[in-house]
Structures are given as structure tokens and as C-alpha cells.
């Protein structure tokens, strides 16, 4: 039996037809992980016992002739910033090196209730701060398309694990591009849902006005199946929304697609531009109306984003103080326990952002930096509100360039931040966006960003699925 690169629906059908058992499938993927990990290093830990136990439950259901949910028996991987009860959850940080999750995140409760099989926890930039997964305190994950290059970040492990066929789907989190950019670099599909569409209970907080959990998968249909399983209101997350069932109901044949000129300017590599423009032409051929639009405040988005994200992170990470959990450094008084534990537990990028955020929020600088950024954010969001009055979707590149070399940007924070320039405005506006592989620059995948209206994930899935077929 060839298990490689089966879709979720194919797995579901095969399990029902008893072509193979959930246990056999889980064993196959655990084996794949053992084979690939020495090169790819996508996982921080594996959970063989949990996976086999979950697979057995699926097999029991099949034997008993019970109703089988779509994700039942499907092997997946979880970004190590989302809590899975009983498993380590390190956030890629020394300060949580030995932290064991006491409960399940709501998205995990929902995956488990469908019977998904959890293979392990994937690598990420420390506390989801970075764009290459190089800021993990534990290991460097490699891009399966080119081992000398990064998988993107911060959900680099989650994207690389799919690309290397170490799992069928994964969960990541996206604050400013952390699902979309690695999906683009690794040639997989990744969705950042609408702000509020998926519960964040059990996701370690980075920047709370931006963070979203979302799925990564090999196909649009797989991505949609996982999103459907995890979306919706959760009483434990008051920012989660009752998911509305409405959609624009637009397919490629009757959609109006906006192409913002600001996303095709300086800094965009010519190969990437060509690939994206070709994909847009294909959409046009399929009947979509293409309209050039302007999102006039785009150029301010990166500055606005980094001020807000660092400010929120500096507050959210105050909880890691050597007192309640995580590593604790001995010191003569309480204040020193805090500062020593944080000083030795956090890595360079986390410290940099805590410092930037604390500065932007501090007395004397608050108005000029944080408040200014919050006002700019209103204008950036308004750009999208205005644009979506005349278009149904917006197409842009995900990243100005394909996967870069390991070590190329890691010592220059500004260079690294520029990788996010095309994804952060969407996050600031809170609208959903999916990264769809649309071509290759040499051997390196390039993703197109398909942005939709608030809560129009179904519209995004519909036209992405059509494009996926056309681009084949």
C-alpha cells in the first residue's frame, strides 16, 4: 500500500473500505518521521504513544461500524506553541524547555473529538517571533525543497513536516504571516483565518490583537476540512466569534479580484512577480474580473505592525518570570528572580522585541510610538474595508522572495522583518488569507496570497480550489 501524499478524503475512504487500518497509517507516518528528521528537523518532539492510542480508537470505531468523522485516523502535527495535554510545550524557548501542557487547547479538543492522530509537536521561532524558524532555541529546521534554505517561519516546522510528507496536515499560528510565509516557502497550502474565527484558548499568547491558529495542508480541500473542524465560538476565548454561514458565493467565473499595486513594487523579486502575474492571468482566463486597486497605507504597515506586535508581546511575556512555570534562576530577592530567569531563559529576538515593546509603551514614548501605530492601524484596516466595497478577493504575493539561505538574515533584524512586508497588512486588518502554491522559482515554491472579506473563508477555499485545479 502506498500511503504517500494521500488526501484527507482518500484516507477517510480507505479507512472505511478497510484498505488499511488507522494504526498502519500512524505507523507509516511515525516511520517517515524517523527517516526524515535527521535532515529536516521539523519536530521538537514526537508523541508515538498518543498517536497509536488515538489510531486504535479509530480502528475500534471502524470495527464497531460507528460513524467516522472526516479527520478520524488522519495523522497531524501541532506547532509547539499550542497545548496538547500531557505533551511538552516549549514554544521553542529555553524558559519552557521542560513545560508539560496541563490541558488541551480548544482547537486540539476539536481535532481529538474528530479522532485526528497527533504525531508530535513542530519547531518554531521562539514564542513565534521570527520569519525563518532559525530563532528556535533547539534546532534549525530545513526546507525540504532545499536543505540549505529556511522553511520560513514562524510555523516552519508545521510547513516543512507536510512538505517532507511527515504528516497529512498541521496546525500553525499566524500573527503577521507565520502560517502563510512558511506555507509559501515549503509549497503547501496555509490559511490564516479571520481574526476571531478560531479559538485561541491554549495558544501561548504573542500579540493578542493579531494571533490566530490556522491549518496547513497539502491541498485546499484538506485545509478546508481542518478549518471546519476547529472554527467557531468557544466560551473559553471571548474574542472568538460565532462563525457565520454566509459567503460571497463567488467562483472564479464571477468574482472580481483586486490586485493592489503597492504589493508589486520595489523589493519584489522578478521571478516571484512573474509567477504571481501568470497565476492572476489564469484566474482572468477562467472568467474572473481583474481590477487594479490601491491600498494606500501599505507602506506604513510594517512599522505599524512591529510596534504593535512588540508592545503586545512585551505585556504577554511578562508571565514568564520564573515564578509560576518554566525555568527559575536562584536569586536573593524577588525582583532578581524575575530578571535573572527572563535574562537566561529568553533568546536574542525575544529580548529585542520585549525591549522594543517596553520602550514603545513607556512613559514619554507611548504617544509617539504605540498610539501613533494604533492610529495608523485604523487607516490600514480602512484601506481593506474600502477595497472590499468593490472587489470580492485580493491577490498578492505572500513573500517578496522565495526561501532564503539559512544564516542569511538571522543577524539583521530589519532584513528579517522585511520578509513579512506583504503579509502583515492583512493581519492588521484582521481579514482571512490563504497561501496557495502557484509556481516555482527554479526549485523553490512560490505562494500567492488570496485575501477575502471577514469570515469569507468558504469563498477563499472555493476560488483557491479552482485555481489549484487550473494550475495543476
Amino acid at each position, binding site marked *: 500500500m502506498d500511503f504517500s501524499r494521500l488526501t484527507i478524503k482518500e484516507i477517510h475512504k480507505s479507512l472505511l473500505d478497510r484498505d488499511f487500518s488507522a494504526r498502519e497509517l500512524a505507523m507509516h507516518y511515525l516511520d517517515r518521521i524517523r527517516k526524515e528528521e535527521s535532515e529536516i528537523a521539523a519536530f521538537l518532539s514526537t508523541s508515538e504513544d498518543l498517536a497509536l492510542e488515538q489510531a486504535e480508537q479509530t480502528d475500534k470505531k471502524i470495527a464497531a461500524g460507528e460513524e467516522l468523522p472526516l479527520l478520524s485516523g488522519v495523522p497531524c502535527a501541532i506547532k509547539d506553541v499550542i497545548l496538547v495535554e500531557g505533551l511538552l510545550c516549549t514554544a521553542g524557548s529555553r524558559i519552557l524547555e521542560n513545560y508539560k501542557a496541563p490541558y488541551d487547547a480548544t482547537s486540539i479538543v476539536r481535532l481529538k473529538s474528530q479522532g485526528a492522530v497527533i504525531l508530535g509537536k513542530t519547531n518554531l521561532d521562539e514564542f513565534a517571533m521570527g520569519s525563518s524558524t532559525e530563532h528556535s532555541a533547539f534546532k534549525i529546521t530545513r526546507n525540504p525543497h532545499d536543505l540549505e534554505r529556511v522553511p520560513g517561519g514562524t510555523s516552519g516546522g508545521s510547513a516543512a513536516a507536510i512538505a517532507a510528507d511527515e504528516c497529512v496536515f498541521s496546525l500553525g499560528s499566524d500573527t503577521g504571516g507565520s502560517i502563510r510565509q512558511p506555507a509559501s516557502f515549503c509549497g503547501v497550502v496555509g490559511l490564516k483565518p479571520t481574526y476571531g474565527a478560531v479559538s485561541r484558548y491554549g495558544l501561548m499568547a504573542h500579540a493578542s490583537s493579531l494571533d490566530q491558529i490556522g491549518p496547513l495542508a497539502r491541498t485546499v480541500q484538506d485545509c478546508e476540512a481542518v478549518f471546519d473542524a476547529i472554527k467557531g465560538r468557544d466560551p473559553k476565548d*471571548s474574542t472568538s466569534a460565532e462563525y457565520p454561514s454566509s459567503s460571497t458565493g463567488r467562483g472564479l467565473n464571477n468574482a472580481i479580484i483586486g490586485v493592489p499595486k503597492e504589493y508589486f513594487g520595489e523589493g519584489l523579486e522578478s521571478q516571484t512577480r512573474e509567477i504571481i502575474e501568470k497565476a492572476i492571468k489564469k484566474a482572468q482566463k477562467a472568467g474572473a474580473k481583474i481590477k487594479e486597486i490601491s491600498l494606500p497605507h501599505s507602506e506604513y504597515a510594517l*512599522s505599524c505592525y512591529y510596534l504593535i506586535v512588540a508592545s503586545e508581546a512585551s505585556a504577554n511575556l511578562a508571565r514568564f518570570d*520564573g515564578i509560576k512555570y518554566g525555568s527559575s534562576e536562584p536569586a*536573593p530577592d524577588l525582583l532578581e528572580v524575575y*530578571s535573572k530567569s527572563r535574562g537566561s531563559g529568553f533568546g536574542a529576538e525575544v529580548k529585542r522585541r520585549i525591549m522594543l515593546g517596553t520602550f514603545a509603551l513607556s512613559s514619554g514614548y507611548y504617544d509617539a*510610538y504605540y498610539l501613533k501605530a494604533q492610529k495608523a492601524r485604523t*487607516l490600514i484596516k480602512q484601506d481593506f474595508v474600502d477595497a472590499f466595497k468593490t472587489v470580492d478577493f485580493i491577490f498578492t504575493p505572500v513573500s517578496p522572495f522565495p526561501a532564503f539561505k539559512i544564516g542569511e538574515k538571522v543577524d539583521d533584524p*530589519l532584513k528579517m522583518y522585511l520578509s513579512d512586508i506583504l503579509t502583515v497588512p492583512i493581519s492588521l486588518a484582521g481579514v482571512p488569507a490563504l497561501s496557495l502554491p502557484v509556481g516555482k522559482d527554479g526549485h523553490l515554491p512560490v505562494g500567492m496570497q488570496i485575501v477575502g472579506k471577514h469570515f469569507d473563508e468558504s469563498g477563499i477555499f472555493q476560488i483557491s480550489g479552482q485555481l489549484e485545479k487550473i494550475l495543476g
Partner: protein
Amino acid sequence: MIDEALVKHIARLARLDLSDNERVKIQRDLSSILDYITHLNEIDVKGVEPFCSAASLYSVMRDDDVVPESLRVIQEIRDQFPHREGAYLKVKEIL
């Protein structure tokens, strides 16, 4: 604008121990990041309300009742306290 004294002040506010080397690097990094950010000053934000939420959220109220958490979860959390005495979290004296 970011001098050594300011870096020390921010690090104290952030409760973050930094080595001399780290302070030098952060001073340099923050300066270049803030230089980049200065173009935000070009935007006219007169009369613009600061952003409040990406979702059209409303205030969420619930009854002020205790929702009991499973004792197993509580025990698991307690077991991971860096320092404890019995069922209590132990910290250094403050006064």
C-alpha cells in the same frame, strides 16, 4: 536617541537581565529599527481614532460564577511550580 542609560532603564522596566554585550547589540538594533519606523511620522493621523479591534466585538459578560476546573489539571499546574510549599506557590519575601 537610544543611549546606554535608556537601554538600562527599559531593561529594568522589562525585568530583563542583559549582559554588557547584549546591551550594546540591543542599543544598536533598537536604533536601526526606530530609524526605519520614523517614516510613520509622514502619515496624517489627525482626527483618526486609535484602532480598537480587528473583529466587530462587543463586551462579553458572563455570570460571576466559579466554573470549577478539574482537580487533575490543577494538580498538574501545581506540580510545575518552580518552588512550592504544600499546595502553595512559594516566592521570595517582598518586604
